[in-house]
């Protein structure tokens, strides 16, 4: 099922009653989720991603804009008739019911001709439980399960009625790091197996990047960028997206473009053909640095961290907008210093330049 959001806007009255201006949680949000894809809604806390999810589920009514499931306009359809499955951040499993009854609950709601026989219901519940691998816990209460198992039960409960769309609100945030890794693989597998269009909300960019078909980056209720994870990572449209994606984070420098060359301080570090002269932010991914004795980029070395697989070189540069530049190099590469300085050449496709004022990316001609 394809999901289309058109000019979706949600305003809340301000909590502080003295301020009459509404809070805009989601602002003129439009995008299309292709059928059968796994979409990660990504953004910092308070960026409106959960509100967007709640509007898709029908728990929140948009102030304006339309929501389509396939060709049906569901904007006015109440949550109970939308046929969505929703997994809550804290799972919201009914504590007084066993796992089996929790999973059966949505099926038992069906009325009239949709009502299934007891055997079919049980069979469906068993299938859903098997899919998320909790079959052996069917007669336990949620409180007798670990966080990860509860999470699976919540997913099974959302899946059992074969929803048109599966929505997950911060599905992994209550799990420990190890379980999170495992569960996100599970999530991916379950989504693949069922082929249900799935939207999940997260503030963890790594999580979103690793399993999504597409990620949607939001900030302050405004859509920043949509695309395949790698695409968004490689071609951020603005400084926010560039900073938000990637660990370690991108290194941002103050720089300027003069005569088709990118300057940081007094050093020209790279050719940027076709870009008019101006002041810019320069974003350099940690993996863009290549140790090179004749390289154009010169930074004062502060420390080297050996991580095994690769090596982190920490250095300082006067034009850097943060404190310590972090570059990641192959552990086989030798870092040579000259008077306490380390020299790098840069991978041009890992360097992004942004307008100083608008912070939008500046496109440059291919080299």
């Amino acid at each position, binding site marked *: 099922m394809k999901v289309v959001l058109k000019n979706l806007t949600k305003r809340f009255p301000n909590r502080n009653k003295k301020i009459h201006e509404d809070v805009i949680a989601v602002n003129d949000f439009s995008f299309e989720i292709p059928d059968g894809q796994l979409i990660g809604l990504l953004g910092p806390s308070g960026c409106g991603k959960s509100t967007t999810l709640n509007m898709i589920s029908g*728990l929140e009514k948009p102030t304006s804009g339309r929501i389509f499931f396939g060709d049906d306009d569901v904007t006015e359809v109440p949550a109970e008739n939308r046929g969505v499955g929703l997994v*809550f951040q804290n799972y919201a499993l009914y504590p007084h019911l066993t796992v089996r009854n929790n999973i059966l609950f949505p099926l038992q709601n069906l009325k009239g001709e949709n009502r299934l026989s007891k055997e079919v219901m049980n069979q469906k519940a068993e299938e859903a439980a098997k899919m998320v691998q909790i079959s052996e816990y069917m007669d336990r209460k949620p409180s007798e399960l670990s966080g990860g198992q509860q999470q699976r039960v919540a997913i099974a409960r959302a899946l059992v009625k074969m929803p048109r769309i599966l929505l997950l609100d911060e599905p992994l945030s209550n799990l420990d790091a190890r379980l999170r890794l495992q569960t996100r693989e599970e999530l991916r597998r379950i989504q693949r197996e069922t082929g249900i269009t799935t939207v999940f909300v997260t503030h963890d960019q790594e999580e979103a990047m690793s399993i999504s078909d597409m990620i949607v980056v939001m900030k302050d209720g405004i859509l920043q960028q949509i695309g395949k994870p790698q695409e968004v990572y490689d071609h951020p449209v603005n400084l926010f997206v560039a900073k938000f994606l990637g660990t370690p984070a991108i290194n941002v420098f103050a720089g300027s473009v003069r005569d088709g060359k990118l300057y940081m301080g007094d050093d020209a570090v790279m050719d940027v053909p076709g870009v008019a002269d101006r002041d810019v932010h320069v974003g350099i991914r940690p993996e863009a640095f290549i140790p090179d004795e004749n390289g154009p980029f010169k930074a004062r070395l502060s420390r080297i961290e050996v991580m095994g697989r690769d090596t982190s070189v920490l250095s300082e540069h006067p034009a850097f907008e943060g404190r310590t530049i972090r570059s990641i190099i192959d552990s086989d590469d030798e870092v040579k210093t000259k008077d306490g300085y380390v020299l790098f050449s840069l991978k041009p496709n890992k360097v992004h330049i942004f307008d100083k004022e608008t912070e939008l990316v500046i496109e440059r001609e291919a080299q």
Partner: protein
Amino acid sequence: MKTNGFKGWLYLLPAILFLGIFMIYPLVDVIVYSFEEGYNFASQSFFGYGLYNFSYVLHDPFFLQAVKNTFIIVMITVPVSTGISLLISLGLNSIKPLKELFQTIFFLPYVTNTLAVGLVFMILFKKTAYSDGLMNLLINAFGGSSVDFIDGPYWAKITVMCIYTVWIVMPFKILILTSALAGVKQDYYNAAKVDGTSRFRTFYKITLPMISPMIFYLVITGFIGAFKAYSDEVAIFGTNLNAAGMNTIVGYVYDMLYGDSGGYPSYASAASLILFAIVFTITVINLMISKKNVQY
């Protein structure tokens, strides 16, 4: 470790002392009294030990009347008051404007003096030479004939008593239930909504189980409180409850001690032990039922 044990007892001493003097000793004394036959209040002497006091009390028509009254009041008021409180709490929980105001209004009876409320009920229900009372005016308006609720037939009196008791115990229940309802996380309702759960089923399958511990708490304390009722009856029917035929078990105990026919601490002790046995049995039954039904 040994000194720790000693210290522990030392710290407990004040509490043990007070509890021992003011609770355990009187309790034991009551039991002793109840078995002392022919106790004379003036000379503080008695003939011997036996079960005569219990036999006397159980054969006393006033006591049997009191037991009957108490049971009727308990069996009617506890379920009715809990049910109505639940409905009101559900209503309070679902409105937004003026919620605080209504909560305050519903809580007012709790802070009002029992006797003052009794007076108001007298005015509402009492039939005098000058006025039939507000209730009778209403009954007349619907074509019925006036009933003397305070000095009239038994069923009228017990009705007033039940209405009064329900009214006086509801505020506390509403207070407890509204906070219990507010404590049910919105996520459960959202989950139920997304799954297309009907309102009745949401209430029956989610809300009710979630607040069931509180409901059972209210039922158990409600039973205990109603069995011990006395002041409410006095507020409406005056101190001579036996004459009105509206005595309760606690009222009987009081009469046996200090009433016009009083001065029989042995009978009073026997009656209060019988009350204790009844309350204990009912509470055990309640707890057994609640263990079965409160599932988490």
